[in-house]
């Protein structure tokens, strides 16, 4: 075609002239056609649409920063539904997702249950063994175990205790009486009390009772008072110290755990698991209850003619204080739709005149009772009457309108506008 055009000088000139006259418009037209094709493909192609929305969606979410926004309200039921479906299909997914939060909470709760700060007569412990050790040589002078405790070689234990004490003193250059007083390995504590000649060490499994230390100090002081001379010349012979055994048994009896703490020690793992399960169940229940309560509050916030002025949510106790227009929907029905028993919420409602359009229209309709075939619409503060209500009714309505809350004027209209509010 172009070849022909260039062959014929007249046609070529005409083309040149046309290019000069309408060339820019033609280029613009072609650009617009390309733009329309691109937009069409964005609207019809799934991938293009997905790409478009993936760019726009984060912006939408950022713009609707207010948690009370319509987008948030629209998304919330969907998110709830997705979470619910996910939990029903595989609870492990949510459990694993929540673990970084729940794990520390549970550990903290269980730890608090067993921590030393919560010492009481119910705390789990057992004073298993008592050693009286010669302070200088580290040789055992006397040793007693609580009933049912497996026998440990007292000489070896006291030797190792002395070795540890020596190591600490040597390595950290501490003075003798600033030396080892407490050694903790797992749930075993070794409490060590000192006197100039002897060391009294108590092996305690679990949380050390408050009564132990005074008992050890008193016993140590008693031993020292009774055996000072013999201890001064101790040569490895434990014969002269046989009467120390009953003293140690006295300490073991005095610090023996109560029957309840014995139970506690034996069943502690089960109690811990049960506690964990109860805590977990409680947390899940609280999350569920809180979500349900928030959904109810959200619906009440959206409901025309109802304003929540105060709310309280506690364990087994819920309270709602609302303002309610006489023409608002029945609040009890809304509450029951959210799976609450009507009497499970302490509801206190006060009457007020709502300024919501639909409520004002309901109020006007009820006050004016329009005859059949007549429809009333509201636009801001003006009532529009469509139909043939008759002059007498209209004149009566004009007299009543100034007394209807939220309505100023009543007018006749031939057709209803789409912008006006009508009753559903």
């Amino acid at each position, binding site marked *: 075609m172009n070849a022909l055009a260039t062959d014929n000088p007249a046609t070529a000139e005409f083309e040149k002239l046309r290019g000069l006259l309408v060339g820019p418009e033609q280029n613009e037209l072609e650009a617009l056609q390309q733009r329309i094709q691109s937009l069409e493909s964005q609207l019809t192609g799934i991938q293009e649409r997905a790409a478009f929305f993936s760019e726009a969606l984060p912006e939408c979410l950022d713009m609707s920063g207010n948690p009370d926004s319509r987008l948030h309200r629209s998304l919330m039921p969907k998110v709830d539904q997705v979470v619910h479906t996910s939990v029903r299909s595989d609870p492990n997914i949510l459990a694993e997702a929540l673990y970084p939060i729940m794990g520390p909470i549970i550990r903290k709760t269980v730890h608090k249950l067993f921590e030393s700060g919560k010492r009481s007569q119910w705390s789990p412990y057992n004073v298993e063994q008592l050693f009286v050790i*010669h302070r*200088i*040589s*580290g*040789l*055992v002078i006397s040793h007693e175990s609580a009933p049912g405790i497996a026998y440990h*070689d007292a*000489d*070896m234990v006291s*030797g*190792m205790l002395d*070795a540890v004490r*020596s*190591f600490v*003193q*040597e390595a950290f250059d501490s003075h003798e009486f600033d030396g080892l007083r407490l050694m903790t390995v797992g749930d075993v504590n070794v409490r060590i009390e000192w006197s100039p000649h002897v060391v009294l060490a108590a092996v305690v499994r679990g949380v050390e009772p408050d009564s132990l230390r005074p008992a050890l100090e008193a016993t140590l002081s008693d031993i020292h008072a009774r055996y000072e001379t013999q201890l001064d*010349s101790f*040569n*490895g*012979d*434990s*014969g002269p110290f046989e009467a120390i055994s009953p003293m140690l048994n006295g300490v073991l009896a005095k610090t023996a755990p109560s029957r309840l703490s014995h139970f506690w020690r034996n069943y502690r793992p089960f109690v811990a698991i049960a506690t964990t399960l109860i805590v977990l169940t409680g947390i899940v229940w609280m999350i569920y209850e809180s979500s349900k309560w928030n959904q109810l509050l959200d619906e009440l916030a959206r409901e025309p003619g109802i304003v929540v002025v105060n709310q309280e949510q506690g364990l087994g106790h819920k309270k709602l204080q609302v303002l309610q227009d006489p023409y608002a929907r029945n609040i009890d029905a809304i509450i029951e739709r959210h799976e609450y028993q009507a009497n499970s919420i302490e509801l206190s409602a006060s009457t007020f005149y709502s300024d919501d359009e639909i409520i004002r229209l309901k109020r006007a309709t009820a006050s004016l009772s329009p005859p059949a075939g007549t429809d009333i619409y509201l636009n801001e503060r003006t009532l529009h009457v469509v139909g043939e209500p008759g002059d007498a009714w209209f004149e009566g309505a004009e007299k009543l309108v100034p007394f209807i809350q939220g309505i100023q004027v009543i007018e006749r209209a031939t057709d209803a506008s789409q912008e006006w509010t009508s009753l559903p």
Partner: protein
Amino acid sequence: MIRKKICMLGATMVGKTSLVRQYVDSLFDEKYQQTIGVKIDKKTLFIESEEVRLMLWDIQGEDDSGSTRDAYLRGMDGYLLVVDSTRRETLIAANSIHTRVRDMMGPLPHVLVINKCDLSAESQIMDSDLQALSGDALSLVRTSARTGQHVESCFEQLASALSSVRSASA
């Protein structure tokens, strides 16, 4: 029943742990495992029908420049000073340890033990070398932790001496 604290002293790798193991468990292991800090063992024996319980503190060996952990020695009743017959430098280390312990704790019953005597061909220590060190020792015993030769004897000589010290003081 009496208890006595006995320490095993000497340079590293002279066989202190092996001597204790041979004495307490009648076992010997060719593999060398260095003692870190201290290892405590116990052996009960009867001397003149009296029960004597020896608490054996096998203390980490020391090299030429090192020092015995003094805190471990506190309250010790006696000690075995061990020398490796195949390494002359362990005799010098033993001499140094002995002098320091005596200065720190006064004279204490002890036995001079020349270990690894099963390796007599490799011996680097002459009898004349031992005269000074064995002067105030209860006895000089040549042992082999590997074969068990005279191991029991060196401990029992010390235990007897400690028992008699106790009898004398009682």
